[in-house]
Each structure stands twice: as C-alpha cells, then as structure tokens.
C-alpha cells in the first residue's frame, strides 16, 4: 500500500516537473533570433541546487532540443547572469563540449554583453575559446576567478589531476590525496558504469571525453568537481549492483536521493564480485576529514558533511552525475 502511494507520488512529481519545465519555456516565449543565431539566455544564477536549478537545467535541455531540431548556430546569452556555481557550470561546459564533439558543424557564440566577473569566468574556463571568440579573452585578474581550472578525458584521471590541482594547493591541503582518490573513483565510474547505453536525444561521445573536471579556489576552500553525462547513479546501480538496489529498496529507499545516499553507505553486495563497489564510499573520505561532498545525479542530491548525510530530491532531472568535493586550504597562498 505504502509503495503504491509512493509510486503515485513519484509519477505525480514527474508530471508537475514536466509542467514546470513547459511553463518556464512558455515564459520565455518563442525562440528569439539575433541575425542567423538562435538566442538562448542563461538565468541570473547558474546553479543546480535551490531555486535556480529548474531554470539552469531547462536552458541546457533547450540548447539540446534546438540542436536536435537542426539548429546549428546558437548564441549563448549570459547578460542576465550574476553568479555561477562551479557544479552547475561544469554541466553546461560538458554539454557544450559534447555537442561540439558530436556535431562539429555546430557554431556557438557568446553575447558580448556580460558583467566583468562572468566574462572573466567564461574566459578562464575556456567557453569563449570553445566558441572561437578569442577577442573576448582578456586575461582574468580576479582572485576568485584565476583559480578556476578545467580538464577532461577518458579513463582514470591520473596525471591530468595536475591540470586542476596545483603544487601550491597540494602543499596547503594535507588531505588532498582523498580528493585525488575520489577523482580516480569518479572518473573510473564514468568509464565503467556511466554509459551502459546511449541516452535519449543527443548521444555522448564518451570515447572522446567521458568526464569533465573543474577546480576552484574561493574563500580559502578548494573545490573539485567531476561530471559525466551518463545515465545517472539511480539508473546504473540496478544494472551493476541489482542486489544492492534490492536491499536498499527493502530498507525503504525509493527516491533518487535515497538510492545515492544508500549506495554511499556501502551495503554489502552478495554478488560474485563483492570486492567491488567501494568507489562511492571512498568519495566520502573527504567529508570525514573536515571537507564536504555533494553528489548530484538525476533528481537526487546528497550532501555529506562529517557523518551527516542529507538527501534531497528535485523536480528537474540532471542528465548525468556531478560529484563535488570541498576542502579548506591551510597555509599561505
């Protein structure tokens, strides 16, 4: 009975999420054009948690829909944007990069009108370069921007970690090894589990780039974010660890966030390969040494601080998985 009510509630949530998405699209009106380019505007805050999640994810879906409908010239408008959260920006970066990998004829451009800080962020992470607009790329100077770094790849991160975590940061964070260990697991999961099948809509060229990684130093905190565009943890867990999922369901885990939170606690697998499945718990080690871990996958978000695990579900699904670690930096810059 309870399960039936939960299922009904879930379908109802999905229905309302779809309605909300349609409403946002309707508010924007029809597609606006500037010359040959279709204009797509980003929200005031680019974020995948809180009130701007719906708008941010809807913009990403809108870009993909336009590409699928045959549009090849897209003008990205960041003029309204005042704040960018790294975990959301990596989702946008990954989708744009993947679209360029799958459809080399697609042409992205950015509107020139943006505030100085946003322009510096877009320059620093290479969005203008991706759009072929080197004329905008004046060297960033802001202290909260110059430490944004990006890398991407296939297979485990290994040497590429040096592109996102500098020697200086390694010397200032004694537990940086836990972030490296987490990144190894996240990038390995992207290779092994994230793409068991192609997603609907725009496929992912995961043999060209299967994961994307950002790092940022802000307010004396090092944040490292790894993103994949796979089918998400709540979808891959039943495929790779069906017995683990069955165990979680028997414990009442029905939502995406419950499933992710349950997988973090590492319920023992009874399959022949019970030595596997340590990856997600390994990612939590950062949280046990004074840092934090946030996992976003499909509708679920799980925040881990110390031994405290908070699970939250959103209406709008994220098409992929984003894992974010944060650690306080010690010592001097």
């Amino acid at each position, binding site marked *: 009975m309870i399960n039936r009510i939960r299922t009904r509630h879930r379908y109802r949530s999905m229905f309302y999420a779809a309605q909300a998405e349609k409403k946002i699209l309707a508010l924007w009106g029809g597609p606006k054009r500037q010359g040959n380019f279709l204009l797509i505007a980003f929200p005031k805050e680019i974020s995948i948690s809180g009130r701007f999640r719906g708008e941010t994810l809807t913009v990403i879906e809108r870009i993909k829909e336009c590409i699928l409908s045959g549009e090849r010239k897209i003008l990205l408008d960041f003029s309204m944007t005042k704040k960018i959260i790294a975990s959301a920006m990596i989702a946008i970066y990954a989708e744009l990069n993947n679209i360029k990998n799958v459809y080399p004829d697609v042409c992205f451009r950015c509107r020139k009108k943006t505030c100085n800080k946003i322009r510096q962020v877009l320059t620093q992470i290479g969005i203008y370069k991706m759009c072929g607009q080197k004329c905008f790329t004046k060297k960033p100077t802001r202290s909260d921007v110059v430490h944004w770094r990006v890398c991407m790849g296939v297979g*485990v991160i290994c040497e590429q970690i040096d592109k996102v975590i500098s020697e200086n940061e390694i010397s200032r964070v004694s537990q940086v*090894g836990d972030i*490296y260990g987490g990144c190894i697991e996240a990038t390995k999961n992207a290779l092994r589990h994230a793409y068991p099948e192609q997603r609907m809509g725009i496929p992912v060229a995961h043999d060209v780039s299967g994961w994307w990684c950002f790092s940022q130093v802000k307010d004396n905190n090092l944040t490292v974010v790894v993103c994949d565009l796979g089918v998400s943890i709540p979808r891959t867990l039943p495929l790779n660890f069906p017995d683990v999922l069955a165990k979680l369901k028997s414990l009442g885990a029905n939502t995406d966030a419950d499933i992710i939170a349950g997988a973090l606690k590492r319920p023992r697998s009874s399959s022949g390969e019970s030595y596997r499945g*340590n990856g997600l718990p390994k990612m939590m080690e950062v949280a046990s040494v004074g840092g934090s871990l946030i996992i976003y996958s499909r509708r679920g978000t799980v925040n881990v601080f110390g031994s405290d695990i908070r699970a939250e579900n959103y209406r709008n699904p994220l098409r992929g998985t984003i894992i974010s670690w944060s650690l306080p930096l010690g010592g001097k810059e």
Partner: protein
Amino acid sequence: MKTISIAKDFSVYPGGRTPEDGPHSGREFREQLLIPIFDGNERVVINFDGVRGYGSSFLEEAFGGLVRCGIAKEKIWGQLDFCSSKDSIISEVKRYINEA
C-alpha cells in the same frame, strides 16, 4: 629489509583497477611488483607515501587481488609490511586483504 616505494618504483599517480581503466592500475602494480615478492621468502616493506592519492579500486585490486591470485593470507601477512604517514591507508589495505 627490502622496500618498495609506490611513488618511486611504480607511479606518483596510481590509477584504477585494471589497465582498461587507464595507466598505473592496481593489477599492473600487483603483477609487476607484488607477485614477484612471493617467489622468495624475503620480507618487503611497501611504502605508500609520496603519491597524489589512492582510489579504492587500485588498493583493492593490488592487495585484495593477491588473495584472489591464490596467495595465502598467512604468506601475505608474513612477507609484507606496510608503511604510510596515513594510518587509514594501511587499515584500508588490511581490510581488503582480510575481506578478499
């Protein structure tokens, strides 16, 4: 006593479980550096310091994999010593050997 430093003798960037995951995998480390230890009876210290960090799959495949390769746990405990500035790495490795 002989010492194997993972950073100096293998890689500063330990990778994933198998070579399919990418370079410097746990299986490569096991096959190149650990398995030959058990051809003799010498005690060897494995030094875990000096690397960027470890994924659980590297450690599990390298050390838990020894048991799955048919090396008796008693032989592993008898010939391997572990050295690390982080106690959590040593206890993680011991857990993988015990649970394998």
